[in-house]
């Protein structure tokens, strides 16, 4: 297993290099970072001073190679906006994003598993149609809009929940629900179709013929075998979740990485974007690795043992 994990980590390195190059090109082609660092009235001399102070006067390739050289030794450079090292800025916002994402996944699972199961068990019934339509609606609603609607209902009208920022668990409810509702429909639809397929398998028919209780047949035999595609998609949803977190963090003023990266993209703060994307890449990689490793738990025929 260690060889498998090592291989996966090694494979990430060229991906990160490619990503850093794409980022650098996109950020620099997009515009001049100095434009966001000086006043509109700034004189050419002031602009030149700022440009030189941040090293933006050097050739582009030199800037890129310097940046890569630093990253190799763990130095992602300084944020031009915060005037401090970029990585700590990202790391200190990481817990907030992880907290939001984990709770969102839990909410998504709490919605997706029962709805998916019920839809599959009562296939083509009125209940199934209603739940399917609800899932489609959930998928169709943009995070931004849904977030605002939840704020107006639960924050302004009913005043049950806080609207923005951090505090206690109640501050997490609205943003995590918004994010969770975003991914639950995909998982619901997948679980439904997967369960329908598994429920038609011979071993399920056999289990039923043996007189096993329906609950045992569904949960132990059918659901477990439906979970591999479900978990695979859940892993892939992590990248989507992080993208969604950017918007949700902005709407709910949640002080996470997504908001930081979004603002940094706006002002061409390359160091912060690079550090943030590096952490995002690690999260996505770890999530997918965990998904792959979970296959062995779900299906004893899959093994990652080193030969």
């Amino acid at each position: 297993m260690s060889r498998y994990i090592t291989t996966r980590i090694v494979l990430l390195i060229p991906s990160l290099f490619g990503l850093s190059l794409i980022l650098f090109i996109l950020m620099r082609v997009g515009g001049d970072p100095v434009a966001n660092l000086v006043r509109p009235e700034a004189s050419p001399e002031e602009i030149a001073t700022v440009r030189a102070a941040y090293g933006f006067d050097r050739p582009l390739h030199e800037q890129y190679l310097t940046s890569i050289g630093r990253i190799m030794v763990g130095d992602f450079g300084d944020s031009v906006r915060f005037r401090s090292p970029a990585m700590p800025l990202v790391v200190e916002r990481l817990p907030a994003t992880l907290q939001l994402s984990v709770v969102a996944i839990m909410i998504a699972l709490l919605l997706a598993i029962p709805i998916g199961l019920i839809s599959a068990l009562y296939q083509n019934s009125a209940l199934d149609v209603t739940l399917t339509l609800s899932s489609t609606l959930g998928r169709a609603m943009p995070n931004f809009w849904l977030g605002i609607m939840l704020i107006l209902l639960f924050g302004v009208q009913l005043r049950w929940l806080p609207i923005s920022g951090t505090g206690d668990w109640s501050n997490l409810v609205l943003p995590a629900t918004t994010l969770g509702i975003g991914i639950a429909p995909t998982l619901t639809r997948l679980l439904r179709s997967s369960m329908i397929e598994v429920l038609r398998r011979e071993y399920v028919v056999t289990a039923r013929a043996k007189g096993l209780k329906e609950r045992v047949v569904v949960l132990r035999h059918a659901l477990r075998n439906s979970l591999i595609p479900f978990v695979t998609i859940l892993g892939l949803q992590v990248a989507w979740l992080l993208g969604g977190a950017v918007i949700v963090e902005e709407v709910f003023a949640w002080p996470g990485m997504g908001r930081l990266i979004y603002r940094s993209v706006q002002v061409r703060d390359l160091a912060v974007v690079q550090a943030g994307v590096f952490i995002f890449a690690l999260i996505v990689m770890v999530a997918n690795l965990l998904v792959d490793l979970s296959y062995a738990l779900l299906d004893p025929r899959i093994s990652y043992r080193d030969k």
Partner: protein
Amino acid sequence: MATLLGRSRRLNRWSNARSLLLLSLILFTLGACGGAAPAAPAPTAVPVVADATAVPVPTTAPAPTVPAPTEAVATAVPEPTTAPAAEGGKTATIGMVELVTSLDPPTDWAIAATWIHMNIFDCLVWRDRATAEFTPWLAESYENTNSTTWRFKLRQGVTFHNGEPFNADAVVWTYQRILADDTMITYPQWTFIKEVTAVDPYTVDFVTAQPEPAMMSKISGTGCGIQAPVAGKAQKESGAEYKPIGTGPFAFSEWVKDDYIKLVANANYWQGKPDIDNLVFRAIPEVSTRVASLLAGDVDLMVGVPKQDWERVNANEGTSVEEYLTNRTLLLALRTAPSGGMLDWSGPTSDPLVREAISLAIDRKTLIELIDGLGIPTLSRITPPTLGSSDKFYNQFGEYNPDKARELLAKSSYKGETLTFHTSTAFLYQKEVAEAITAMLQDVGLKIDLQVMDVTSFREKVYFPNKNQEIYMDALGNSFFDPWITVKEFEVGQKQRSGWVNPEAEKLIAEAAVNMDPKARAAQYLRVQELINEENPHVYLYLMKDAMGKSDRLEFAMNPDNFLWMGFAKVK
């Protein structure tokens, strides 16, 4: 109008679409880093899923007699003496678009940062924003000992939040620190200072490179807060994270990045303890969420309430909207000659007749109706109470004469070329106003290519490569309330965006920059405004208004510079 409002709202939300697109690309690429499928086959196929009145100024000097320090500065770093946030005290929460990037005043000059800094740090001089008069603040008095030397007598008995005494060394250290570091973002703002020296423990001399009539404006402007030197030096030496220690009405308590900054009342404030015990600045970037927070009572004050939300805020129990005037003027800048990043430019606006026609084609009354009256027409960026402002230009609609505009175009060198018109979506209604102006210009026979972009793209394409073409529109402020900054881009050597050459204006601007006689200086700027209106390198539209949403429990009057200094605010 409802359609316009809706469009405007959508526009603001999607104005940063390019950034979102870029982020999406990054995240899409990230998805590719997800990893390969496991080596062992899965047993089942994995389905492919597809600011109203001036800030009150104390009438009495509150500082009692306190013995002068025997030593310039203590050597030990005093511990903060301000009590931490008192639970259950009076709290006021301000909803902000964003917080500071740094609590060190010279390193962050954004408006939001200034609002927070000015509640922690005091400056030597306070500018009454309603009258543009200057009031001694941490300085008890000041005088011009010669044309380039300003002597400040400092207030005695004032202490920093950590107990350090405020004295000449604090002032010298604060300014020398900036002047020694050209990477400080506010460094260019202070380069007019040649030297800062302590004459005695409570007297400081500022020597400027040349006579500096805008000295008081500049020294009371952004980043002017005096910092505690002993703690500052110790923090620098230890490399510890910067903690702001000033003499202001509130002391720093807590900063949760991107979430909130909490300040607590300075019980020893030299003007008396503020009424607010806990002042919280909370970052809520999305305007709809900010308004919702105000309605729900989570926030007591916010600025920039969109017009479409006014009725809702006023109808809500305990909240209301108050209009206020900003110091931001919306203007059209017309390129007159090749310069900056457009050295090979030759456009129709180089002809003064075309520029005059543009000015005559604009109906400011209609524009102000379009923006629901949220503006005062002006023909100058120098507006009251700034020195040099005049009724001749302020609150004037100017001449609107499309027929004369057509005649001028017929006489001009204009041959039907397309004029490029850049604008951003930084401010409410900016796109709608640009579209209305485009229609007005087309009506007199000009061909216009309107290019609307988000504010970052606008700055990157128009400002800093100086690749503005015939017309661009922007709203520019003057929080210094001094005329120098409003005509800076017409100075010799600063014409990268306008290219406007007028020897008389250049001479007047250069003379006014060092003229210590306010009356003569005002006359010089008045003449410059006349010249601008004659030759139209700028066509001014209106001074913008904005609105703050406020909880009824908060007693606060917006300053005309729109800075949220809360030292005298009260909570019921």
